[in-house]
């Protein structure tokens, strides 16, 4: 089972990769939205969750989310936003666009582990 983290920050991708690995997932990394969508289309059947940053060069997180949900091949894959954007309006936009969870940065590894399990429907 694979997770895909799409974030322009290597630091954040590294934290998520570490958490995912502890949980037993293979973690795929993309440094921007276009690369993330390409990986997602190539490995649709194996990716169980996408962790998506909002502010990135090129496509922003909302645009990537909308692209994922607009594609019948990928629209069933759950997406969790992982971002510094904590305002209510951002959260509402993301949920309306189909995100299943919303985690603001910074986060502890324990919190991220719990959020991943929740987003996959296996946690509280």
């Amino acid at each position: 089972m694979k997770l895909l983290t799409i974030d322009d920050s290597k630091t954040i991708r590294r934290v998520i990769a570490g958490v995912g690995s502890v949980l037993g997932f293979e973690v795929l990394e993309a440094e921007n939205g276009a690369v993330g969508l390409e990986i997602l289309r190539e490995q649709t059947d194996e990716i169980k969750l996408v962790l998506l940053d909002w502010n990135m060069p090129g496509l922003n997180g909302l645009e990537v989310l909308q692209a994922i949900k607009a594609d019948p091949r990928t629209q069933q894959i759950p997406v969790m936003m992982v971002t510094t954007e904590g305002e209510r309006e951002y959260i509402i936009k993301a949920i309306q666009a189909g995100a299943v969870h919303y985690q603001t940065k910074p986060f502890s590894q324990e919190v991220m582990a719990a959020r991943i399990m929740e987003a996959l429907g296996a946690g509280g």
Partner: protein
Amino acid sequence: MADPLEHRRILLDALQGVTLQILESESWGTVTCDAVKVLPSFQLTREVCGVVHILGALHGLVAVMATQRTVAAIIGTITGSQTRELTQEDILDGIAELANMVCGNMKSRAQIGNLAITPPVAIMGTEFIAQWKTVLPVHQLTFHMRDHTLVVLASV
């Protein structure tokens, strides 16, 4: 019409609060902040700097800066990496993400509406002088954790 001076005060309070919160959440224990200083100019004076432009209801610049050793220590605690494993690229990425987290959370906490932040610019080196010309006041917040110091400049 909103009062820009009041907005500035709210933003600076938020900046101080979120920086303390972020540093304390990353296992630094007790973090202290010196009294806010007003500087004559906006100059980057540390080895590693992350700079974010604030746009919207207020405009200005925020810089987060420290020595390479301190940034490596912060990134090491965030990622669980040994600091000796971190490359220059890791340090640059780390200060950029730290600046992004500080400014993003500042914006969320301040709630003064219509604020946006640009992607961060990261600068690293011992042989540069960088200055942003502004007519706005420049505030310096200095944070101490263990034997490390992090400086945040804000001109909004």
